[in-house]
């Protein structure tokens, strides 16, 4: 027999043999995957954001179906609706989920926050932060280079012309991705029902903070003394509002009236704090510019 034919026969029979062997063993050794896992995965939003603490939606679906101790409401992008569905599918009790939204605790727009140098490097907050903590004189504020905007898996953030990110309340799922990528830790998650918010992250003493930014919280504690429900505390020269107390007890936000720098403001979403006058157009304009 000539060699080419021999080669053909040997290799073909090898291929066919292993092909059939694998096909057979695929049937023989198949394992039944709980079909519920795929149903649950279909319900999840598939942002693969990891807010639940698992490596993607599939991993969470597997965990929530197979492990009775995994809570059904860990998917924060899915909000209440998904939590309810997952709970229904897995037969677990659904604890209600408070809807949250990411907020940038900074109002230092281009005209309000001073700069100590002109930054011309990579358009990335982490990179800018490596260079003396970024170009802003305030070392706690938003750098405005949009690392969070790029990281948002749900396209809920845009960079406003004023140099601060705007968060779209419709699209924000409070997955916390922006919170974790921000090198300044200036973004936090807040309950949607909050009434007031402090738009500053500066832990500097009053005079220093005021020098760097005209809308800084100077730590004067006037708002704290105004509040009859003790919802505001001063931590490191910065007013911290307990949104829960606000939401439950307060009907008239007297804290807002006395603030000398207007660092504490009503809680509104979808605009850059301090630009309320142009509020209606801000979001629309920024999205056109993009």
């Amino acid at each position, binding site marked *: 027999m000539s060699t080419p034919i021999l080669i053909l026969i040997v290799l073909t029979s090898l291929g066919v043999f292993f092909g059939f062997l694998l096909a057979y063993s695929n049937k023989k*050794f198949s394992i039944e995957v709980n079909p519920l896992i795929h149903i649950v995965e279909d319900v999840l939003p598939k942002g693969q954001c990891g807010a639940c603490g698992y490596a993607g939606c599939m991993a969470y679906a597997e965990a929530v179906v197979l492990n009775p101790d995994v809570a059904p409401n860990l998917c924060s992008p899915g909000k209440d609706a998904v939590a309810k569905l997952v709970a229904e599918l897995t037969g677990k009790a659904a604890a209600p989920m408070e809807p949250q939204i990411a907020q940038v605790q900074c109002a230092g727009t281009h005209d309000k926050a001073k700069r100590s140098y002109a930054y011309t490097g990579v358009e990335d907050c982490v990179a800018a932060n490596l260079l003396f903590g970024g170009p802003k004189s305030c070392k706690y504020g938003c750098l405005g280079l949009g690392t969070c905007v790029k990281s948002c898996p749900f396209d809920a953030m845009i960079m406003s012309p004023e140099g601060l990110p705007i968060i779209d309340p419709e699209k924000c799922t409070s997955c916390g991705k922006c919170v974790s990528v921000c090198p300044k830790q200036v973004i936090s998650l807040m309950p949607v029902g909050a009434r007031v918010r402090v738009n500053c992250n500066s832990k500097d003493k009053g005079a220093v903070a005021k020098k760097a930014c005209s809308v800084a919280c100077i730590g004067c504690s006037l708002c704290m003394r105004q509040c009859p429900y003790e919802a505001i505390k001063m931590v490191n020269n910065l007013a911290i509002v307990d949104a829960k107390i606000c939401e439950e007890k307060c009907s008239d936000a007297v804290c807002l009236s006395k603030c000398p720098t207007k660092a504490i403001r009503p809680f509104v979403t979808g605009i850059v704090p301090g630009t309320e006058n142009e509020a209606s157009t801000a979001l629309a304009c920024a999205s056109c510019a993009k």
Partner: protein
Amino acid sequence: MEEYLKLFVASAITNNFVLTQFLGLCIFFGVSKNLNASIGMGMAVTSVMTLSSLLAWAAYNFILEPLGLQPLMLITFVVLIASLVQLLEMIIKKHAPALYNMWGIYLVLIATNCIVIAVPITNVELHSNFLTSLVLALGSGVGFALALILMASLREKLQYADVPKSLQGLGISFILAGMLALSFFGFSGMITL
């Protein structure tokens, strides 16, 4: 008996595939970031290597050589190893889920690794019989696991070291691997086959 022992030590240490012949470096750097993963990977590689080289030995001696088709060795071995790994994955998934969770993705990675095909080819070159090819495969696997575990322990320690910025990550790992290889060079000449 002495001959097998010599072969085992030679393949595991003096002719260590990773550190003296620089094969299988992608797994070596990819999986040596933590000790647990490297132990799992070492075990997986050892078992796959042993099984596949035995199968390859049989295929070479009973099919290729009698028919005079030795040049087809490489392609046959590739088919063999790829199928074997797939088969092994299915069996382990079904019968030993705990082991599967531990080996997981590593098992499939092995199918495309040069170190797994190097062993059957070495066997052919040495004209091994069944027993010597078994010993060689086992020794090479143990040698690979040893190198991987050594490297993983070093790299875990490295996390506390003050490494210059330009060398952080893979850079310092390569330097470390070079030093490790240098120390293994000390064994060379100890055993000659």
